[in-house]
């Protein structure tokens, strides 16, 4: 089976869907002729023409607002925000419009749209190229929120997102575009071409929204995580010889609560790991749900490892990023806690 980077598999998903469905259109800043600053849309304009894949003016509110208009017409826009850090001008369009269109019009108008954007740190991008704003979207009723962690899932989830009848926020951890990253920034990165999850089937397949996956079966504790942090969690567990069950949530909303409950009920311990800032982060939601559903099975408090509650710094990237040593410490403490 061909191996692809996450960039190639995301492109493949859009290509597959543009080929199958002429209503799929792709646009955003620099996505047309150039193919996007991360090259996710490279070649799509040449293949499908400039009315199916085109450059947008630099106006994120405009990009999402126009996508909503197109979606309500019957197209399936899959738009790119160059970095998640630049999505805020579009926040009103997403929150007040896309998310509520179906509800307020009682289904008269709907918004089958995907908003893709790179998220996360680890690239020395400073405060404007590193943020993880997922909780700003999971807090909004009417949105679905997806975070893939590998090329196979990225393609399958993006196809499912494009086919979904509701607006989907598709967050792409840019640090793992070219290979998994375990947080050891001083070690070479394995490219996806050397990784099993880099195997991406040709053509159409989906990874359903709302289904988590166990990356590792284990008995001692459950790690709930997604995106880049899946690999950091794997490394931390291995380095501390902890038999962790690692759950890659893949979709934050709708959330696969069954898989979570089943696992935590079995292990009795739970650590939540994400890059985004701690306070009111998605980890708070996960910790609350685990507490509600598994309280009598828990043998230790639910722990959270997250980004510090500061803007994302530049020079102090590795003091900020919740790497394997911080995650490892939380795993050990959760195991020792009675």
């Amino acid at each position, binding site marked *: 089976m061909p191996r692809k980077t996450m960039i190639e598999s995301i492109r493949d998903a859009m290509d597959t869907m543009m080929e199958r469905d002429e209503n799929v259109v792709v646009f955003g800043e620099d996505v047309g002729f150039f193919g996007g600053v991360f090259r996710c849309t490279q070649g799509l304009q040449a293949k499908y023409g400039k009315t199916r894949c085109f450059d947008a003016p630099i106006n994120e509110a405009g990009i999402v607002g126009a996508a909503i208009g197109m979606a309500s017409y019957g197209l399936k826009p899959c738009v790119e925000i160059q970095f998640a850090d630049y999505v805020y001008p579009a926040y009103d369009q997403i929150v007040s419009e896309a998310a509520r269109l179906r509800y307020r019009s009682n289904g008269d108008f709907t918004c089958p749209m995907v908003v893709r954007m790179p998220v996360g740190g680890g690239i020395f991008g400073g405060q404007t190229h590193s943020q993880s704003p997922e909780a700003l979207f999971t807090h909004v009723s009417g949105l679905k929120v997806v975070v893939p962690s590998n090329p196979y899932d990225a393609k399958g989830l993006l196809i499912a997102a494009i086919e979904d009848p509701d607006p989907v926020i598709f967050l792409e951890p840019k640090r793992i575009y070219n290979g998994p990253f375990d947080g050891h920034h001083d070690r070479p990165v394995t490219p996806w071409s050397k990784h099993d999850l880099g195997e991406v089937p040709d053509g159409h397949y989906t990874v359903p929204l709302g289904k988590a996956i166990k990356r590792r079966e284990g008995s001692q504790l459950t790690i709930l995580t997604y995106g880049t942090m899946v690999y950091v969690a794997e490394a931390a567990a291995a380095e501390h010889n902890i038999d962790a069950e690692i759950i890659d949530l893949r979709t934050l909303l709708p959330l696969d609560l069954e898989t979570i409950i089943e696992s935590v009920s079995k292990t009795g311990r739970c650590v939540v790991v994400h890059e985004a800032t701690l306070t009111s982060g998605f980890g708070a939601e996960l910790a609350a749900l685990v507490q509600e559903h598994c309280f009598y099975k828990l043998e230790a408090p639910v722990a959270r490892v997250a980004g510090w509650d500061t803007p994302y710094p*530049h020079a102090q990237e590795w003091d900020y990023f919740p790497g394997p040593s911080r995650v490892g410490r939380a795993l050990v403490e959760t195991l020792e806690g009675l």
Partner: protein
Amino acid sequence: MSDNGSVEFGPLSLHVPEPAVRPGGTPDFSNVTFPDAGSVRRPDVDTNPEDMRDLAFSIIRVLNPEGEAVGPWANLLTDDQLVEGLRHMMTLRTFDARMQIAQRQGKTSFYMQHLGEEAVSCAFRKALVQGDMNFPTYRQAGLLIAGGYPMVEMMCQIYSNERDPLKGRQLPIMYSSKEHGFFSISGNLATQYIQGVGWAMASAIKKDSKIAAAWIGDGSTAESDFHAALVFASTYKAPVVLNIVNNQWAISTFQGIARGGSGTFAARGLGFGIPALRVDGNDYLAVFAVAQWATERARRNLGPTLVEYVTYRAGAHSTSDDPSAYRPKMESEAWPLGDPIVRLKNHLIARGAWSEERHTQTEAEILDTVIAAQKEAESFGTLHAGGKPSARDMFEGVYEQMPPHLRRQRQQAGV
């Protein structure tokens, strides 16, 4: 109502603008008209905006092909001032070249240069005085160089080292200096255009005499914040100069995508009743003359002016970009407005105030100065080596007083 719309005029089609040439093609600016130097009138600063709409569609130029300064916008600067301007532009270019190399050597993560656009920020700065405030983008470091901000401090910021005035928190080149009239650069495009208007309104509310200058690129004028700035500036006649640096490109996107059907970016001001001027951005004398005109309007409480600097981004967008993927390699050489340094140099030589020898000598002097500054900056560390800001600094400055949750997190981090 039919479900298919009216059939009277046949099917619709979507218009998507395209640049004249792409890689592999021959650069061609023959369809762009550049008025002769000296041909554009200079109205009095208190002229009714309605009576100078033509200036939004022309290009104010002072230097002619022979290197002479001609027309009503000429003769504002002395030889010494022009030599100083030339040195500023040469310094900025040398600074850029050294920092580009430093980035490639891994001494910092990122850099953005000004190649071809040096005149805009260097000349504009000379129309400002202490107390005025710029709300710049990442491509106006000439405001700092021409304003006497120490290069060593700029470099320490770029290196995120132990002397970085911003404590390693901000991306390279996102400088901040209130003292030097340089508002902290955010990195989010266009957000600061409207803030510049608000700052200028504050000066008027307080009956002060300070003015603001807001800056934006051609591509970023598409942002809603640009339009917010224009309506506020127009409504309150804010003492602000609204600068648009049209360097033809926004990363890979040509200016037609942001401009749309409007003839020029300057013309955006007309619907708001804001006087709008276009100027040759590669002509130091013209940039200064227009900057002086617009700042005088602001100082006389006559309100905002929109200025479009017509220039060309001769280099890559940033160190993460390779323009050969989206525009012809020779396009910058074909750019009809030439190079701002060469043009000012030729003018000074034509005036008898400069020579090839002095130029070469100055080039060498400037290189020495920049290298000395770089050595000093590097003695305080570079991004991955030597002195760095502490992890403790990361927790400071989020609030004036650190709240308990951050104190706890800092403790947890063990710093």
